[in-house]
């Protein structure tokens, strides 16, 4: 039913939805989660659904496959899939439809693929269960052909492997292969590249773009406007279950009309936003052209000049030896890493997953001892002394993790969390005053004292985590991906807070991130990690604008960028 139909009416929409509303009885106070959603996707077209977490984008996409979940109540004006009225479909119709007409690619391939089956079996199942082919040999050929199509090298060998044996990028491609095996007219991809490194993300996006060129429709769900810019023809921006902005990608991203879209675009950190507050961004009419707008931001307070060396890392190396079962193979995670961080300086570490960034942070934090080399803190030996000797200096070196919630004792309230890291014993009242002033410093208030962290939003949790680190009055804070789990607007607020406090207090930051935009926005200097080595380092602007090393160049080329994406599309 798939190929013949699309040949006849090329321009007829693959899917057309008008006035879709979704709600769950009892949840959300009985109010619908998605209201009045319209969507049309034609063959060879990519529509992107953009919004923050909780905006209703995933549930909307799922309801297009009738997979909104148990208890979901949907109401819709008009819902046609390839010209057939989907409102009258029964469960059997939907089953026939999934795979052949629509394919779904989800974010986490490891969870979406069956751990007990090889990726070859996974793809073959889609082909055989829809009885597209019945001959075993033909199914095998088609499977290998599909795996090849999504850019998996040596498909014959890879088909025999299980999902957990593949790298993240290959795994995601295998998932796409199973989604497109039956040649669907519509692919729904829900954050397909969110957990991937930038270079792998670029490859996966290319695979999807290839499908569009072959005539499939793509509904891409993403929170990343830059990803969207490079691939989507049209963009729909959702907020709180409502469509707030939509139109051709170029119009929406370069001339955003809705304040929310503007806010989303302006909150993206980059070299252009250096030294200014991200959350303060507003759009003003351009000088030359009445329709053009330019982003105006308020500046951050003046930075203090870099002072003495706070942290010195000298030629550290670390390797791990695999357990006996895995053959005691030695893997080198860090090799001859040397750098220093001065007072009031922000030093960024970038690199892909597995490059040794986090291991380096652990060594600096004194949670792991290096095999070779030495770390000194405030001029005193750090990595070479025993833990008991380090304890005296511990307050001077603090840590802001990516996942704030799991770093809080589940029994503790906000006041206990901060109090635990507060030095001295100067009476209960004085301590309470100090805790409240720390909360106010990070934009919270005394009202939050007795909140349990679970009841706080992601941004608030990260603020508590920052307040906790500052409580110890540290000389340097190690931040490990502190904003990567946050939505773009919240990320902007937290970055502003970090930058402002940093320049006010003169605390040095060692800032680890995979996001080059964040690094360029915030950091004075940057270290580029690859396979446990520093391949390039220098001033952030110099390294990220004129990279010298091939790896830095490829990293930068893979980072999606709105301007570049639009001009390429």
């Amino acid at each position, binding site marked *: 039913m798939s190929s013949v139909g699309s040949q006849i009416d090329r321009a007829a929409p693959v899917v057309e939805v008008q*006035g879709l*509303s979704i*709600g769950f009885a*009892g949840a959300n*106070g*009985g*109010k*619908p989660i998605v*209201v*009045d959603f319209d969507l049309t996707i034609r063959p060879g077209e990519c529509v992107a659904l953009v919004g923050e977490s909780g905006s209703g984008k995933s549930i909307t996409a799922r*309801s297009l496959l*009738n997979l909104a979940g148990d208890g979901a*109540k*949907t*109401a*819709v*004006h008009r*819902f046609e899939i390839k010209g057939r009225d*989907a*409102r009258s*479909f029964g469960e059997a119709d939907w089953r026939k439809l999934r795979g052949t007409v629509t394919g779904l690619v989800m974010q986490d391939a490891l969870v979406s693929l069956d751990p007990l089956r090889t990726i070859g079996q996974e793809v073959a199942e889609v082909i055989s269960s829809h009885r597209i082919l019945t001959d075993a040999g033909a199914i095998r050929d088609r499977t290998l052909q599909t795996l090849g199509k999504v850019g998996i090298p040596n498909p014959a060998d890879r088909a025999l492997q299980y999902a957990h044996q593949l790298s993240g990028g290959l795994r995601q491609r295998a998932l796409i292969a199973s989604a497109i095996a039956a040649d669907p007219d519509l692919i729904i991809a829900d954050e397909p590249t969110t957990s991937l490194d930038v270079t792998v993300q670029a490859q996966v996006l290319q695979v999807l773009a290839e499908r569009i060129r072959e005539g499939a429709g793509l509904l891409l769900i993403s929170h990343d406007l830059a990803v969207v810019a490079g691939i989507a023809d049209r963009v729909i921006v959702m907020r709180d279950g409502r469509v707030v902005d939509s139109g051709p990608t170029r119009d929406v991203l370069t001339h955003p009309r809705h304040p929310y879209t503007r806010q989303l675009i302006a909150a993206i950190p980059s070299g252009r936003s250096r030294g200014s507050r991200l959350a303060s961004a507003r759009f003003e009419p351009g000088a030359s052209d009445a329709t053009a707008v330019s982003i105006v931001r308020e500046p951050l307070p003046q930075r203090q000049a870099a002072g003495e060396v706070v942290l010195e890392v000298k030629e550290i190396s670390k390797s791990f030896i695999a357990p006996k079962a895995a053959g005691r193979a030695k893997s080198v995670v860090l090799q001859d890493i040397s750098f220093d961080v001065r007072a009031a300086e922000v030093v960024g570490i970038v690199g892909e997953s597995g490059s040794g960034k986090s291991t380096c942070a652990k060594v600096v*934090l004194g*949670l792991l001892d290096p095999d070779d080399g030495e770390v000194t803190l405030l001029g005193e030996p750090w990595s070479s002394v025993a*833990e*008991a000797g*380090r*304890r*005296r200096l*511990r*307050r001077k*070196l*603090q*840590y802001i*993790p990516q*996942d704030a919630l*799991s*770093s*809080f*004792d*589940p*029994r503790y309230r906000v006041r206990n969390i901060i109090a*635990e*890291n507060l030095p001295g014993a100067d009476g209960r009242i004085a301590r309470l005053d100090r805790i409240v002033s720390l909360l106010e410093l990070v934009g919270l208030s005394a009202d939050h004292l007795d909140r349990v962290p679970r009841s706080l939003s992601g941004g608030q949790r990260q603020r508590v985590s920052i307040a906790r680190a500052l409580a*110890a009055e540290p000389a340097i804070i190690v931040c490990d991906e502190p904003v990567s789990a946050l939505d773009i607007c919240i990320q902007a607020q937290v970055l502003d807070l970090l930058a402002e406090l940093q320049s006010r207090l003169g605390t040095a930051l060692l800032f680890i991130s995979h996001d080059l935009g964040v690094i360029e926005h915030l950091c004075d200097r940057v270290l580029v990690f690859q396979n446990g080595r520093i391949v390039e380092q220098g001033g952030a602007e110099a390294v990220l604008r004129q990279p010298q090393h091939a790896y830095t160049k490829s990293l930068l080329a893979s980072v999606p960028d709105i301007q570049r994406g639009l001009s390429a599309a």
Partner: protein
Amino acid sequence: MTAPSHRSFDTAVPLEAPQDLVGFEASHSLAAIAVRRRLPFGLVLSFVFVAFLIAASIAPSLFTHFDPLVGDFSEGLKPPGWAHLFGTDRLGRDVFARTVFGTRYSLLIGFGGVAVGLGAGIVLGIIAGQRNRILDEAVSRLFDMLSSFPGVLLAMLIVTFLGQGMLNIAIAVGIAGIPKFGRVVRAQTQLIRDADYVTQAAIYGLSRWQVFIRHVLPNVLVAIPIIATVYIGSTILIVSGLSFLGLGPQPPTPEWGVMLAESRDVLRVAWWPGVFPGLAITATVIAFSVIGNHLQQRFEGRLA
């Protein structure tokens, strides 16, 4: 996908309070709470039954005016009726009174056994859960040894060593339960030992001991009441078995296992002296298991 009418949501639905936040309020009846919190009927029944059990073991004379130890021979083996709710046994003692008075022994030995098992299990489990591989191996093998005997058999062995009596039987059942509790505590300790907030505490500059006392221990202990409830039922079952074999309290104590043993001789002519204490054991075990399982499900995933 059914579409009766477009925008069927526009009719405003009043805001419901989130279920989790609805607390117990004294002014509301148990049934009302059950309905509002959508508790399953069996669970409510189990809670009510356990409440009765506790009341019966504290003040058994509230439930019956008969003496559990003294009977009238002329009234021997009367079937259940209005005079004697559960009938009488061979010696003319009221079976209902004996069952009610027996609650005390079963609960006491059951709780005592769990306490002994938990106490030792917590200490050993925490030792095994530390980062010391030798200690872990030693303790874990001890658990293996203890659990390689069936619980009843091991308890019998220990009672034979210690001699009969309520305290000894509680100790015996407790020792037999050590591996069960110890393994759960060990796993929980390992989980929390590696939790991010424990690492974070090390970064504060707390000593290992401070980290353990402040963060590891309390979070390990959070799970204990739940584990205890789950195992009380099965402990009571073992205790009744041992009493039945004559290793626990001795006749004429109205303990349920003892009553079962006494009823054996007359079972051909009178079913009631055996069936009622048997039902009491069954109902108690089920009630505790239902409550324990419910608690476990409720707190699943919230402990780490």
